[in-house]
Every structure is written in C-alpha cells, then in structure tokens.
C-alpha cells in the first residue's frame, strides 16, 4: 500500500509496509499513481500527453522513471507487501508485562475546566486522595509484574496531583529505594494545572520527574474561557509565571506545555504560537474529547479549518526552525530513521495490557480515560489483574484488529488509534473515532512534510 499527497510544494509518496518515504516530482508522482494498475506503454502515452508542454518529459525519461520504480519495488521500498498480518495475530498469545502506571493520586481539582474528561477530577465518582499505602502498593505491583523490563513509567495524574503532593514525594522516595533492589529505572511524569506550583515543587520536579506536562491552552482569553478556578476566575495569570520559572530552571529535562483546543478556538495555531512566543519550546495541543452536544465540541464544519490550521502550523514551524527560533510540536515529532519498530507500530499504546491506571482506592482500569466506568474495572493493586478476559480483549486491540482500519494508510503510524476514543465514539474498543482519525492522518502528512523540508529537499511544484 502506498499513500501519495502534495503539500507545501512537495510531492510525497509513503510506502506503508516498508516505512519508506519518497520525495518525487509531479511526473513521477503521476507515474507511481498509475504503476500498479496500468500497462507501461499506456502510462508513457498518458504522461506524454499530460506533459506535452514540458520538453524534458520524453519517452526515454519516462522509461527511466518506470525503471526506478521497479528497482524500488524489487528492493522492498515501494509497493512492499503486508508481511505483518500474521504477526498481529500472534499478539493474542504474547505474554505481556506491565511497564507503566498512571497513578490517580487526587480525584479532586482546584480548577473547574468545563471540558475536563475527568469531570473536574472526580471521574463521575467521589472526591478522594490516594493514600501512601495505596501508592506504595502500586509501585510493588508494577515491579512485580514488569518481568525483565527495566524502564518503568509512573505518571502522577489527577484531578490535580499537586493536591496530594507530599504523598507524591513519598511514593517517589519509596520507588527510588525499590528500583535499586530490583534493578529497575523509574521514569516519573507529573501532569499539573500549575496552580500549586511553588519552589518546593519546582526543585523536586526538576530533580525527580523525567517529564512534566503543564496544562496551558494558549492565549489568555482562550485559556481563561474554560480553565477557571473554583471561584470562577481565569487561571492564566496565576499559572504562567509559575510555569515559566519551572521550565527555566529545568536544565534541559523534558517538559511539555499541553493545551486543549475546542470549537471556540479552531484557530488553535495562534495559541501554539502564543506559547512559543512566551519562550516555551516543547508544545502539545490536543483536540477536545467530548460528547457531541457540548457547546465547545468540535464539529464537522470545523474539520476543513482544522486541516488548514495544521498546515499553517507546519509551514510556520519550518520558517521558525530556519530562523533559529524553532519549537517542537508533539504530534509532528517523527523520527524516520530511529522510530518505533513494527511490533510497537502494530501493538499500540499498551492500554489494558502494558499500561494501567490506578484509582485513589487502588482499583485498576485499562487507562485513565476508562476510570470510573465499572464495566472496565480490571482488578486492584493487591490482587492484580483479575479481569483477564478484558485484558485479553485489549491485547488484541491493535492495528490489525479494527475492520475500519483495514484500508487505512495511517494504521502503522497510529497503531489503530485510541481505544478509549473508539469506545466513547462507537461503544466498542475495536471501533474507530473517525473524526480523530481524520485529524491524525492530516497531522502525519504534515509531520512528514516538515521532515522532508528540514532535510533540504527542493520544492517541485
């Protein structure tokens, strides 16, 4: 399978099953489109007719293009066959280990963001803080079920995790003791709205947190529209200086400014550029996940505007990169040479198998987005995963498990998409969230185009 697209002056051909990326001119682009369905002589005839005003498009030249395509095909870099379907089937039999936990250390929040999928931190349940006992047991559970996997990830999540900060510090201290005993390496992430950041948080986070995710929606008026304190006031002015101080003292360690865009700011690139202009360089901006009847929900009419926004973002990133003030956008990060192997590309995010969420009470769910849904309770940190049927269902939830993904060129980039989004959109984790798919495909096209541009290729149209 191949995917062809033209963007920002580049003609790009993706060979899906080899992972190859080809940058071609418009003539080769057209020849490749016809190659598998049309006889060579007919391709030559059509091309000579279409490009009759271009003297360099000769029969000899076209035969060379056809030879190049055949050579690439022979070398497995174009029209490569799908060799992975059987491998995907084996995923059912694989013995998975758990390598990441999302610890819901606080099912409560000091903001009342309208769009919060966690219902202002409560996840449709009671307010609660995780005890140290549960936190330590979660660490023990993770180590015990991690097999030979050395790098273990723990995300302190909420609600707002800083509302249970001492417990977070104590769990980190406990995990640091345990990792030495068990030859593990914990990587901690803190996801916070920033309100409670102080010097103690900054010092500790910069020492212990492999990554921090700081929630900022962009421009003040956009951020304050939905991210309000319990008193109804906007939070932008409170958090911004705290975020700046934390990032400036981070010493190069990982962080993301993470925003959400909604129907109210479909011009979300202005929010990304705002964050970049503030001096932040590691940026993430996600489409809101919500019920379709919410006033801020993204609509079908928004889609073309969002596509345009992703293109604007890509071209501006190229421009800023060349000007020496570039920034990273999470969804445009793509390492074509050193990216994930085929196992990762098929198996997906690992929710329900390698990655679990832990509630304040120690209950296990496939991921943070399933927390609070009793149908998706998987067990607890004392007894482990007891709902093994559900785990096996998630084990099979991969790029080859979803009928809707069968003909999609992007499935080895998204691995079949987010199970929670699919479930909320269709009622099944093996469904797809088509709206999200459309945005994802656009983002991958843009991400690869940015790579092409930054590799120095010349525009061909």
């Amino acid at each position, binding site marked *: 399978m191949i995917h062809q697209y033209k963007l920002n002056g580049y003609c790009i051909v993706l060979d899906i099953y080899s*992972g*190859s*990326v*080809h940058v*071609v*001119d418009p003539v*080769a682009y057209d020849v490749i489109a016809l190659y598998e369905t049309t006889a060579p002589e007919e391709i030559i005839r059509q091309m000579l007719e279409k490009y009759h005003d271009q003297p360099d498009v000769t029969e000899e*030249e076209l035969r060379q*293009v056809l030879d*190049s395509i055949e050579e*690439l095909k022979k070398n*497995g870099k174009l029209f*490569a066959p799908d*060799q*992975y379907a059987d491998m995907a089937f084996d995923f059912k039999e694989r013995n998975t*280990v758990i*390598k990441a936990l999302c610890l819901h250390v606080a099912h409560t929040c000091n903001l009342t963001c309208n769009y919060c*999928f966690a219902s202002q931190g409560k996840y449709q349940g009671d307010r609660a803080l995780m005890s140290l006992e549960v936190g330590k047991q979660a660490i023990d559970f993770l180590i015990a079920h991690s097999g030979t996997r050395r*790098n273990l*990830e723990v995300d302190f999540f909420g609600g707002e995790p800083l509302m249970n900060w001492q417990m977070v510090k104590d769990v980190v201290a406990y995990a640091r003791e345990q990792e030495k005993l068990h030859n593990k390496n914990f*990587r901690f992430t803190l996801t916070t709205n920033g309100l409670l950041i102080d010097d103690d948080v900054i010092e500790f986070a910069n020492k212990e947190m492999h990554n921090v*995710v700081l929630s900022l929606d962009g421009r003040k008026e956009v951020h304050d529209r939905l991210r309000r304190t319990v008193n109804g006031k906007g939070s932008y002015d409170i958090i911004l200086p705290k975020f700046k101080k934390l990032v400036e003292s981070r010493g190069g360690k*990982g962080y*993301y400014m993470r925003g959400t865009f909604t129907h109210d700011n479909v011009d979300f690139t202005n929010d990304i550029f705002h964050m970049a202009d503030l001096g932040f360089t590691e940026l*993430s901006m*996600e*489409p809101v996940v919500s019920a379709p009847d919410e006033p801020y929900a993204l609509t079908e009419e928004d889609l073309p505007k969002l596509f345009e926004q992703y293109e604007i973002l890509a071209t501006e990133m190229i421009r800023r990169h060349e000007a020496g003030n570039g920034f990273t956008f*999470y*969804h*445009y990060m*793509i*390492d*074509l*040479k*050193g*990216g*994930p*192997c*085929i*196992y*990762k*590309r098929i198996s*997906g*995010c*690992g*929710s329900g198998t*390698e*990655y679990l969420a832990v509630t304040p009470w120690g209950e296990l769910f496939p991921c*943070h*987005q399933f927390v609070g849904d009793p149908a998706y309770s998987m067990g607890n940190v004392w007894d482990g995963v007891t709902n093994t049927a559900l785990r096996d269902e998630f084990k099979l939830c991969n790029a080859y498990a979803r009928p809707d993904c069968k003909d999609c060129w992007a499935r080895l*980039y*998204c*691995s*079949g*998409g*987010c199970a929670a*989004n699919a479930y909320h959109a269709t009622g099944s984790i093996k469904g797809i969230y088509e709206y999200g798919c459309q945005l994802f495909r656009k983002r*991958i096209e843009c*991400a690869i185009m940015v790579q092409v541009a930054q*590799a120095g290729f010349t525009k061909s149209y």
Partner: protein
Amino acid sequence: MNRIQTLETRDLAQSAHNGGCGECQTSCQSACKTSCGVANQPCEKSSENK
C-alpha cells in the same frame, strides 16, 4: 534532476527481526493523554542495533 528521491528511514520489515524489545515508552504517557500515536515514540535501542 532525479525525479524520485528516497529519505533514509527505518526498514519496518527488518525491524520485525531486530525489534520488539518492549523497552519503549507507552504511547500516551507523555504529552497527549487523549489520542494514540506511535510514530513519535523514540526507540530505546541504540542505533547500531537497528
């Protein structure tokens, strides 16, 4: 000019033989939390092993 140029990319078919160590990050853990993409996940293996 050469009408077809190829970027250097990881050979996915080859990665079926030398991949699968499982040390990489879970996809949703870092910055998004509301979608799934694997393309932007770095491989934990050193480049000479790929």
